[in-house]
């Protein structure tokens, strides 16, 4: 266990929610028997839709929440029994967090947090300047935090998390709500920090497939509190190598039940996305030979095929195959 950065054994968490003051509390299962092992130096991703249990797992690993079953260790220490040993070794950055105080400047906020970790003031100030330079916020050193844009604020949060050079850093949706440029900057910073600190470990949660694919050495796909698969992105995608994945852009379905396409023999998974002036249909087929049957079904319903694209499997397809729904569908499902 000493050699692992993070290890969980059948970790579960049940929340008791009391809807009315005098009513019996209802139980909501957030995590079910999650077992994971993350080696030092790994950039490990937890990929899943909102409400999948990713943040709950991060809270457990950062000693902020107790598991209701199972055990978890960070850097060889038990999260429940030895939180004081874990805390100096870790840090966390969450997407959309509004930590610190708006009245304080960027430097003051970051310096304050550095003091909680016992960093000598001079070293903290040097590190703050250095990291702000890297993320492109050097000119905002003395700007009040309340005057920062969302992207700038998140970059400051990233600096806060990384300035202590933690042994294990937990990034909970670090690019949530950021524009494309800011998200790219944050991702590139994470990658370069990992390259500069080979022994450090990052555990990242995200529901952006591209982010997981681009950043992570290994990924665990999580849904409804359960880990469904865990491997390198390439290996996960290789599971779909035998299948053929097609994306079809078609005219509006006009009364045709999308479910009809699922019933075609050889269609393993199917996703329908209405778009302006038509629809996008994505198929995972047993093999390419099923495609004529799909096209035939379109013709039968007078649906015009505008574009057809065969593509390589993505993590989205892996998720679709494992769950039977796309991540977007899971998130839009009532109670999902």
């Amino acid at each position, binding site marked *: 266990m000493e050699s692992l950065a993070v290890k969980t054994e059948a970790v579960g*968490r049940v*929340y008791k929610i009391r809807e009315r003051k005098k009513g019996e509390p209802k139980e909501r299962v957030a995590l079910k028997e999650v077992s994971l092992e993350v080696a030092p130096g790994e950039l490990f991703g937890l990929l899943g839709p909102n409400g999948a249990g990713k943040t709950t797992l991060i*809270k457990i690993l*950062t*000693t*902020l*929440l*107790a598991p209701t079953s199972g055990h978890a260790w960070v850097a060889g220490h038990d999260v429940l029994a030895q*939180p*004081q040993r874990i*805390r*100096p070794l*870790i*840090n*966390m950055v*969450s997407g959309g*967090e*509004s*930590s*610190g*105080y708006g009245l304080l400047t960027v430097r003051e906020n970051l310096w304050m*947090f550095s*003091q*909680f*970790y*016992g960093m000598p003031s001079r070293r903290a100030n040097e590190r703050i300047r250095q990291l702000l330079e890297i993320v492109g916020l050097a000119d905002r050193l003395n700007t009040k935090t309340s005057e920062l844009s969302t992207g700038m604020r998140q970059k400051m949060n990233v600096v*806060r998390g990384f300035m202590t050079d933690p042994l294990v850093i937990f990034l909970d949706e670090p690019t949530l709500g950021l524009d494309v440029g800011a998200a790219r900057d944050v991702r590139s910073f994470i990658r370069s920090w990992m390259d500069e600190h080979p022994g450090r470990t990052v555990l990242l949660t995200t529901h952006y497939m591209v982010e997981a694919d681009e950043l992570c050495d290994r990924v665990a796909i999580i849904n409804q509190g359960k880990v469904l698969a865990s491997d390198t992105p390439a290996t996960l995608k290789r599971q779909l190598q035998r299948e053929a994945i097609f994306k079809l852009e078609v005219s509006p379905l006009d009364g045709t039940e999308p479910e009809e396409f699922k019933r075609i023999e050889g269609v393993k998974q199917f996703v329908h996305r209405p778009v302006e002036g038509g629809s996008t249909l994505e198929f995972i087929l047993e093999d390419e030979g099923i495609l004529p049957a799909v096209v035939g079904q379109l013709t039968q319903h007078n649906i015009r095929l505008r574009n057809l694209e065969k593509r390589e499997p993505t993590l989205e397809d892996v998720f679709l195959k494992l769950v039977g729904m796309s991540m977007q569908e899971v998130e839009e499902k009532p109670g999902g």
Partner: protein
Amino acid sequence: MFFDVFLPMLAVSAYVFIYRAIGAPEEYVGFVLMGGAMTAFWLNVLWNMSSQFFWEKEMGNLALYTMAPASLMGILLGMALGGMTATVLRALVIILLGTILFNVQFAVASLGLLVLAFVLSMVALYGMGMITASAFLLLNREAWHLSNLAQEPVYLLSGFYFPVRSFNFWVALGASIIPMTLGLDAMRQLVFEAGPASGFLAVPVELGILAGLGVVFLFIARYLLAYMERLAIREGRLTDRNR
């Protein structure tokens, strides 16, 4: 400034006019002024220190504070020092304004004892604030109501606007659990000529009790903060605003 200086000054003025209207001894004006100045500390403990963790949770800082290797008590101590420094300035402004407006005469018996009384009162008062802060670690919106509920009774029991000796001995002794009661009484005895005559207990006794309260409160606060943190982690209340 409005809530911390102007409003206490209004209350002080009202009591000064009442005391003058009924022909109360002139030193009561000084007692009231002193009480008015000390309300700033009570308000600081009540609305900042006690409910600090509630607000930190609302702002998203509590999780980061908890997972940092610094103790919550250390973080609270830092906040207490910051709050106390700002409040000392407010209290001094109230005393200065009141002295000018109502011509209050001071006769400090011992500056050293006065400083000691103030420091011991602050240690015990902010220690009590830390105890309540630990309870607020588990609370959500109820925190606001509890602070509201505690504000006025303490004004009464601690004798902010009158000498606590006016109470029955046992009531005054019971009220002494609130550090402001003995702190204020000791300071009044030390800065006004007629202070000792209306004091509740002898100054050394009051200072001894205050020192004891400070030690006990800090000890309880340390234990409770650790206990409440464990409880909040178990129940998932540290990070979730709805729990």
